[in-house]
């Protein structure tokens, strides 16, 4: 009955900064990505050898690459590519991961053991390694990236959703639902899922940021989209040869990745600050 906790109390202003920044930045990235579907400053794949290796502002916002292609346009289309791969991969993770995690928390016992064991095993394979394995078999491409990243996200969401679900199960209202005659499946639908949805959404936002990061790594190694489709990672790989001549080639795509990931991370953290009562007062 001690009515005082030692944690610092919550204040209004500082915490919302992250959420605001997150919404703004990730919104900007998403907007650019969508915009690229209808318009870019230059056609991104059009080669203009006369304009090759021009620095930023001399030709286009971010300069041109070794084939005279406008870097900024490539970045815009790259945004769409990265974002769509990331979202699809994370969606795979959410759908399968939450289903398995919620089942593990509801069934417990042997079923839970098996599911968590499988999650542990898949966890041991970072997306990069799986991508290498998959690419060796069926070749590189967007599908490879999506499967590799998606498969890695499944155990992430298994763990997160199981943890959250377990905490909800510990409440008496689940017992009350049992007393009302509801079975574990029904209770999961009625009570568990609505209560973990928020936490899952927050994690999904952060995972999207991570997926963008991973996809950049994959396309750097050529495991993701194939040319001529622009992708940030591959742009960086191309830039490496021209590092001394045209350093801007290496800087712009990297900034794009960092900003996109930052935006989604801030968004996820901001949402967590705002909605997770356990973290009150602790940014």
């Amino acid at each position, binding site marked *: 009955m001690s009515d005082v906790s030692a944690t610092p109390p919550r204040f209004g202003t500082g915490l919302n900064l992250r959420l605001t920044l997150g919404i703004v930045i990730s919104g900007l990235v998403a907007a650019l990505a969508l915009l690229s579907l209808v318009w870019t400053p230059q056609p991104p794949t059009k080669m203009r050898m006369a304009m090759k290796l021009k620095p930023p502002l001399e030709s286009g916002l971010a300069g041109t690459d070794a084939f005279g292609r406008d870097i900024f346009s490539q970045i815009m289309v790259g945004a769409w590519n990265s974002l769509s791969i990331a979202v699809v991969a994370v969606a795979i993770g959410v759908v399968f991961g939450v289903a398995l995690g919620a089942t593990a928390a509801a069934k417990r016992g042997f079923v839970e053991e098996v599911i968590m064991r499988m999650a542990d095993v*898949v966890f*041991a*394979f970072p997306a990069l390694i799986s991508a*290498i394995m998959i690419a*060796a078999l069926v070749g590189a491409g967007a599908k490879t990236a999506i499967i590799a990243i998606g498969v890695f996200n499944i155990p992430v969401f298994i763990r997160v959703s199981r943890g959250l679900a377990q905490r909800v199960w510990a409440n008496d209202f689940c017992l009350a639902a049992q007393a009302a005659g509801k079975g574990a499946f029904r209770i999961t639908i009625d009570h568990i899922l609505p209560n973990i949805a928020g936490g899952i959404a927050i994690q999904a936002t952060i995972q999207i940021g991570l997926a963008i990061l991973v996809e950049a790594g994959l396309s750097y190694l050529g495991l993701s989209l194939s040319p001529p489709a622009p992708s940030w990672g591959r742009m960086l790989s191309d830039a490496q040869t021209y590092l001394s001549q045209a*350093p801007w080639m290496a800087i712009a795509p990297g900034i794009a990745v960092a900003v996109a990931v930052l935006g989604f991370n801030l968004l996820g953290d901001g949402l967590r600050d705002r909605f997770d009562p356990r973290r009150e007062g602790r940014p």
Partner: protein
Amino acid sequence: MRAILLGRLGSFLLTLLIASLLVFASMDLLPGNAAAILLGTAARPDTIAALEQQLGLDQPAYVRYLTWIAGAFTGDLGQSASYGVPVAGLIGERLAVTMPLALMALVIAVGIGVPLGVAAAARWRQGPDRAASVFAQVGIAIPDFWFGLLLILLFSTTLQWFSAGGFPGWGDPLAALKALLLPAIALALPQAAILTRVTRSAVLDVSGEDYIRTAQAKGLTEGRVLWKHAVRNALVPIATIIGLQFSFLVAGAVLVENVFNLPGIGRLAYQALSQRDLVVIRSVAMFFAGLVILVNFLVDLSYLWLDPRMRGRR
């Protein structure tokens, strides 16, 4: 206690086993014909058959699997199709680059991340905290391979303090370490950022516990309360994250080795990929997975030491 240790060990071995089955199933069973893949579509059937026999692909699946597993103990993991040398040897010599790299990165990451996180938690919402939070937030978002590129741009291309990549071998240890330094820093950055965040949040979480109040009520100095009570109990979640992050460290090593042109296992994986050398990829993938599982097992064991509650009652 012994029962707990045995249980963990069994769990570790089981996970390794399942992982190896997974690798084997995806590499050897599903794709059809590894030899055909290697030789390409234009190859003649008898050439394919000959290669199959050479690679031992004409044996039934479980024989191939057991041969592979047994080979892990005897040091014979098959022959690399593209290099023509034993895979085990290849992995062995590349290890000499990747392991030191990963270790250096781990040490740098922990050495920066944990103290920074503790300092941020101790000066909650003040200067050091805000600075650390910014560092953490930005550091997580920066791709390690891009950071590597930037480092090359700055320290090699511009300042000419370091070479742009490559590895001189361990003959000259100092030169070898110097060659690994920039890659290790690039690899360590996002890990340090994550550790800063996790450490800060773990210490803050623990600071809300009742025993911190008891420690303060005793009249202990702030420093002692912070380190002996708060951080000491925050070590469990921190260790957990180190374990979880290790798989990302591994992936990062693959990327960074390629950026800096280091002859490590990561680069081997990439090269094998371009050659479609499934035999090598199989063992490399298993190596990485096995490493991650091992590290997580060690972290699991560390809980027994870090959290007396896990040891069970006496």
